[in-house]
């Protein structure tokens, strides 16, 4: 990361593309699949890629790598449904499971052959590993974990915006006189596009000439994750937190009930931990954990800045508090003013109904068409 300058926008250097870089056209999205299963971030990127391609007036291409077979072909079709004009298909037994060297060689050769101007990958452990090596091999620019991608109308450059300094700031990064412009984006940042089943397109096969015996790294086995018991607050997508406003220790049970129905992690404010109602490893805030979930439900938490710092990155904050001017209402998205010990059970029932967990009565269909 180059030095952070003041917040005034720096006059961007006028980028003059070398002659040979003008040939780089088209927006590519790397479709990441492991064990026959495409990671949803790839489809989200297809939606974003479609917009960029339309703005640039160029083709959107999907890149798929796997052992030959029905799964690979099905994924190509899905890529067309999600907006691809063309699919580059690289089928090789060497690519059945992800390993850095073969995948880097295949993607690099493909890029050198067909010269895209933009290459997008998911910011998964696979995507970041691959992007890092490919960018270095191609000697080009790469911006990671972007939260926003746009085209600069003046010079058709990709403007990648991403958090920096631990998320307290955002910065916009530009790739200069290098192509392709590479960027990775995290899962659930870009909206999922609607598939159009009638779309189809051109499949282009590419053979990077991979030989298994050349590859040094061997995969011995794959161990799937079992259920985690240790609190995983930093990675949780839904968190239900309780604070002093709950009144007493056993009301925390209501927080656990709602969390159970939502498959969520349980967090707490410093005051609740101070009162000894829950373990300190569940503290969200300045001296606890920083979380960035999709949904954060705060029950009986005043929302003092020390707590706010740890959770204001949440996508959707629901605040339950009986004090109408609790500070949390200044930055929460939704607020219910009332007694948490009444609201929480009601919320548990409503979400339970919606998610049609066994203990709820409502018929499956209503849940389905709501989904």
């Amino acid at each position, binding site marked *: 990361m*180059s030095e952070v300058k003041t917040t005034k926008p720096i006059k961007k250097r006028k980028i003059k593309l070398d002659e040979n870089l003008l040939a780089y056209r088209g927006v590519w999205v790397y479709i990441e699949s492991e064990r026959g299963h495409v990671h949803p971030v790839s489809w989200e990127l297809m939606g974003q890629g479609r917009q960029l391609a339309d703005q640039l007036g160029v083709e959107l291409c999907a890149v798929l790598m796997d052992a030959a077979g029905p799964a690979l072909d099905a994924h190509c079709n899905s890529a067309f449904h999600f907006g691809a004009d063309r699919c580059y298909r690289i089928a090789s037994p060497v690519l059945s499971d992800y390993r850095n060297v073969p995948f880097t060689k295949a993607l690099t050769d493909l890029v050198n052959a067909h010269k895209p101007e933009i290459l997008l990958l998911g910011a998964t452990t696979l995507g970041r590993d691959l992007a890092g*090596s490919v960018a270095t091999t191609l000697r080009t620019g790469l911006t990671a974990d972007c939260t926003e991608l746009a085209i600069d109308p003046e010079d058709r450059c990709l403007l990648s915006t991403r958090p920096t300094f631990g998320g307290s700031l955002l910065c916009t990064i530009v790739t200069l006189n290098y192509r392709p412009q590479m960027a990775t984006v995290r899962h659930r940042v870009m909206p999922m596009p609607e598939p159009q089943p009638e779309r189809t397109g051109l499949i282009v096969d590419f053979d990077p000439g991979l030989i298994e015996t050349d590859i040094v790294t061997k*995969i*011995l086995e794959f161990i799937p994750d079992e259920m985690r018991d240790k609190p995983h607050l930093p990675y949780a997508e839904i968190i239900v937190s309780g604070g002093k406003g709950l009144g007493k220790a056993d009301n925390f049970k209501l927080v656990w009930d709602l969390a159970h129905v939502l498959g969520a992690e349980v967090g707490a404010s410093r005051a609740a931990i101070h009162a000894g109602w829950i373990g300190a490893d569940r503290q969200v805030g300045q001296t606890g954990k920083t979380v960035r979930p999709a949904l954060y439900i705060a029950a009986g938490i005043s929302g003092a800045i020390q707590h706010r710092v740890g959770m204001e990155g949440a*996508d959707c904050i629901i605040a339950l508090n009986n004090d109408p001017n609790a500070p949390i209402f200044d930055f929460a998205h939704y607020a219910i003013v009332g007694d948490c010990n009444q609201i929480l059970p009601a919320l548990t*029932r409503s979400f339970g109904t919606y998610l049609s967990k066994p203990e709820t009565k409502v018929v499956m269909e209503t*849940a389905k068409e709501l989904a």
Partner: protein
Amino acid sequence: MHIVVCIKQVPDSTHIRVHPVTNTIMRQGVPAIINPYDLFALEEALRLKDKHGGRVTVISMGPPQAAPALRKALSFGCNDAVLITDKIFSGADTLATSYVLASAIKMLNAETPVDIVFTGKQTIDGDTAQVGPGIAKRLELELLTYVSRINAVDRANGQITVERRAEGGVQVLQTRLPALITMLEGSNELRFATTPNMFRAARAEIRHWDRTSAGIEDLKLVGLKGSPTIVSRVFGPTPRAEKAVQIDFDPSNPEAACEALLAKVLAESPRVKKELAQRLPGYQED
């Protein structure tokens, strides 16, 4: 066994505050620390040294003021520290950085052959996670990223077996040394330095390498010139102005408010809707 650990001195970003009202960056008095992710790499390297013997060299590219970070790394038990510092390196992005570090490691390799290079998963100020892969590519090292555990190191025939975090599980990989490893955060816990090591670190002389001693051949590839990307604008996230949407709550009929809330959330937050959809029984990620 000769292990090289790359670390970076970064501002303690948990302490960079954006003033909630004026939206300016408050950098006043923000101290510098070792990039937290690098500490997991450092600990793993020291554990390998404890088990298999050998030396750990810690290196960093940065301004002269980055020396204390290396001195701190020495206090945990590293044997040698090199600060690669030169005015023309400043402003480097990850590509230029990996070029400089790779050159320096080549020089170290000439002194004593290097078996493993460790880097942190990413930095808290850059978060790009590209320096590790970049160095591996330039030095033709096998790349093992997001490693959560090192199962075995077989020095006799130069083999290493690790567990690498992947989506939904862990890959057990075996590959040939020399290799470059980036450690996943939380994979170990940093040791509490012993008194002798604190003394050694306090007395140690930190080697300073400039462009020549680091073996830099092509000056065009370093610093701002060698960086394909530049930061064109830094700004604070626009604080949410509007107040929370109030949903009135009638204690006699708590369900009503909750149903209204649920409907609103599903309508207005696609991410939450998707998240909830995934928790529907029988949901198959297509």
